[in-house]
């Protein structure tokens, strides 16, 4: 791998956003009139600006044939990094050397015009993505077939269903043949089957053409399935780098921060977190979900403590809900005591993807002791589940049990 040519070389790139503070009473001026009025009233003062570093001293080399995934929390700097490499926004310092043409998909369908027909939009969108007219012409048929819009080519896209619209945009994008391809979360909006089709074409494309692909996504399963390498960004810096599996595991280890939406804390029970965070990625659908929850009681003894768990999927639907009262009369814990609760959910057969754990603790008569939604993520991956590869992305059900199929002789 190391002998391959580098296609992207980023050296100590930084991006600062300057936020005006201080002298302006509230917001910085957004109209020329306000800006001039401010200058007239304060002719000599200079505006205090605060610098926020979205990306700081970041180095990155991506070689031909590599697909690199970028993961990190919202606001970590992933998208800013991609925008700098693609040339949409300029770095404040550092430089990026690109040894090939760049195709960037920071959004899907940017530049599509609803009044124009499918055919016209293919050419428009293609040139916005950086394709030459000749290239678009030579791939036109393939694009149309990929999108499955043959019959609607001369219909304005405003009459397309949202699915058709997206498929057409993706189809153009999937036929981008640049040496460097940058993708930001774009696959998130497509339906599962089409997503799989695109990922497949991306996965093949990288190695076939000796391309370099950089992919930003929250979908850790997709990162693991597609990327040969991943980097984890936090506060604009690379904090972990390595194989996709290692990096997503590291990312989940940071967990607990991203998703939590609601927490109710009482003096009776103190939540100390999940102990086995690092076990919660790379799980197969058949693996047990095991959580070790750490608590400490407050100033009073607890009688008949019950712990309920809920596991929600990416669409925030509850796919597993367990109540400890189904299996136990409750636990008694003396005051001021640290204790752990081990929860094992046997083979939940969850479809690969990202899930969130919510914890609900209550005492005698249903008294609420602790309640937190989305305290930690866990990732189920398709790797090795079925003998024929990770094709379960297109499953329409929330669970995917192990199953067998056989042809039997007729009777």
């Amino acid at each position: 791998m190391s002998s391959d040519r580098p296609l992207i070389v980023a050296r100590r790139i930084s991006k600062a956003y300057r936020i005006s503070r201080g002298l302006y009473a509230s917001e910085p001026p957004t109209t020329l009139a306000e800006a001039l009025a401010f200058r007239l009233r304060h002719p000599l003062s200079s505006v205090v600006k605060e610098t926020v570093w979205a990306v700081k001293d970041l180095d990155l080399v991506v070689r031909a044939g590599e697909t690199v995934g970028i993961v990190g929390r919202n606001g970590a700097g992933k998208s800013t990094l991609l925008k700098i490499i693609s040339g949409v926004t300029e770095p404040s310092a550092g430089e990026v050397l690109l040894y090939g043409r760049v195709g960037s998909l920071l959004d899907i369908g940017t530049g599509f015009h609803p009044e124009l027909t499918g055919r016209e939009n293919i050419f428009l969108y293609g040139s916005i993505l950086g394709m030459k007219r000749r290239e678009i012409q030579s791939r036109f048929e393939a694009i149309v077939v990929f999108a499955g819009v043959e019959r609607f080519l001369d219909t304005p896209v405003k009459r397309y269903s949202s699915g058709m619209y997206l498929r057409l945009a993706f189809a153009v994008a999937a036929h981008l043949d640049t040496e460097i391809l940058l993708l930001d979360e774009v696959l998130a909006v497509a339906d599962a089957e089409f997503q799989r089709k695109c990922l497949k074409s991306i996965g093949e494309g990288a190695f076939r053409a000796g391309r370099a692909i950089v992919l930003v996504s929250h979908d850790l399963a997709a990162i693991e399935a597609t990327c040969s390498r991943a980097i984890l960004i936090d506060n604009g810096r690379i904090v972990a780098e390595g194989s996709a599996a290692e990096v997503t595991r590291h990312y989940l280890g940071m967990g607990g921060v991203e998703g939590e939406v609601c927490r109710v804390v009482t003096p009776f029970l103190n939540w100390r977190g999940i102990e086995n965070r690092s076990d919660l990625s790379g799980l197969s659908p058949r693996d047990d979900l095991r959580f070790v929850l750490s608590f400490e009681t407050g100033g009073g003894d607890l009688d008949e403590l019950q712990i309920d768990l809920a596991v929600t999927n990416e669409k925030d639907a509850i796919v597993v809900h367990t109540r400890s009262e189904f299996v136990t009369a409750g636990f008694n814990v003396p005051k001021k005591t640290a204790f752990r609760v081990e929860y094992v959910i046997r083979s939940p057969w969850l479809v690969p993807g990202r899930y969130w754990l919510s914890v609900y603790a209550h005492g005698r008569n249903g008294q609420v002791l602790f309640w937190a939604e989305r305290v930690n993520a866990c990732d189920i991956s398709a790797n090795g589940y079925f003998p024929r590869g990770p094709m379960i992305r297109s499953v329409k059900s929330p669970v995917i049990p192990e199953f067998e199929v056989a042809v039997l002789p007729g009777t």
Partner: protein
Amino acid sequence: MRVGLDDVATPVRVIRARRGWRTLNLNDVWVFRELLWALTVREVKVRYRQTLVGVLWVVLQPVLAGVVFAFVFGGVARVDIGDTPYFLFAFAGYVAWSAFGNGAIRASTSLLQNSALITKASFPRLLLPIASVLASLVDVGIATGVLVAGAALYGLPPRVALLLLPVWLLLLSLLALAVGLISGALMVKYRDVQYVLPVMLQLLLYASPVGYPVSAVPKNFRKVVLANPLSALLEAARGSVLGWSAVSGEVVMYSIGVVAIVLAGALFVFRSLDRGFADVI
């Protein structure tokens, strides 16, 4: 532009922070000429998609302006323009004006209207105002066709001078581009510019010889009116259809010089500001 992958020593593209003023690098526009064309075609197509309304409005606007100006300047103020029918005179003046006025408005709003493109796609931002001016030239072309036909109906057949009309319209469009570049760049940061610009242009319309000839301007004001580079270009454009104009060759040369300087300055300002567009728009 396809560069061999083996040629690792020279990057296809280098992205680094720009400091201060930068060179114009108009070569970008040439490299991205296919996108420029696609953006222009998009604007033209979208505008004429509802064919009847689109074309009709392009012709109706200067015709109505011609009627009103003929009434105000010819009927009420009784400006002397010799034997030329006043409607035709004002119609011609307004068609020439629209090459500047409409182009400037559309170029200046092109950045805000394409903010999604600016934050999500990488291309020289300069293409957007240029595409708007080019698209606006299509309107001007249609209106010019009607104008020339109208002049023939009034007994003024096309003459050799008409061959220069595209040159004058192009110069007016370049001035429009200059105004569009500066106001468009300002608009990205200061949204009120989009309300100020149309008012300014409306005032400029009356301060320029659109509804009246420069020859009707009192002698002591004439220098002031001719200092406006629009004056000579409007007169020259109109003159190439009507056969007479009241400006000298020197004034025309002066105006062309001003257009060149203003445009170069505007390009310079735009290229220095455009690095920040994606961050503030």
